[in-house]
């Protein structure tokens, strides 16, 4: 999977990235009217639900991700007075501490920047078609998100 980045109005950027993400690079060159820049990074934690995590794999549906990213960008700009919105989400294999998702929002004032950054991360988590598989110290791994297929299926598929 290659980085899939589209530049839009005000230097907007959304996309998947197979390469490590630098939020600092993503925050460069925001419009000069931006008095406030808020960023958010989701990083791979070393533990989850009490288990020691060694790395993470992100699967993604790139064509649908494009559509979802464009939707999120459109809704963010319609509902928040921002000067720039930039979002990248990683795919592939990530080590502990690596950036899974990075968001940069620039705005005239701080409340607008915080509100928009929060709006974007909530939308990304609820809608972006990516899926996380955690690997643990003992060599096992599992997909996260929703119930395990088998459990759901026992009652549902009969």
């Amino acid at each position: 999977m290659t980085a899939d980045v589209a530049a839009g109005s005000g230097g907007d950027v959304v996309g998947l990235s197979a390469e490590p993400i630098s939020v600092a690079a993503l925050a460069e060159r925001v419009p000069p009217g931006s008095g406030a820049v808020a960023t958010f990074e989701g990083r791979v934690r070393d533990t989850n639900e009490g288990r020691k995590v060694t790395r993470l794999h992100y699967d993604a549906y790139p064509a649908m991700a494009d559509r979802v990213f464009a939707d999120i960008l459109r809704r963010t700009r319609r509902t928040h007075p921002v000067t720039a919105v930039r979002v990248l989400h990683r795919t592939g294999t990530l080590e502990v501490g690596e950036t899974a998702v990075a968001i940069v929002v620039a705005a005239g004032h701080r409340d607008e920047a915080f509100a928009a950054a929060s709006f974007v991360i909530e939308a990304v988590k609820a809608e972006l078609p990516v899926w996380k598989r955690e690997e643990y110290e003992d060599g096992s791994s599992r997909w996260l998100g929703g119930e395990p297929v088998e459990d759901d299926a026992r009652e549902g598929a009969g």
Partner: protein
Amino acid sequence: MIAEAGLKVEVQLFGRYRELAEGASIALELPAGATVADLVGELHRRSPGRLPARPVVVVERRPAAYDVALEAGHEIALIPPVAGG
């Protein structure tokens, strides 16, 4: 009268559903006029016990209602609950 041909679809698989098939997609032949519900029924027959009752089916890059009729050429995918961030 022209005999109705079956509907050939290819269902892309993502996340944990990739494990339902070797090549990250499943090719199916459904009756002409089949809906999303028909597609899910067929998937349940092929992989009993390995899918939830009502998995999300994405048609043309948007989650689809179960009564949507599938058409030849539709981009179709089966996705688990998303887990990004």
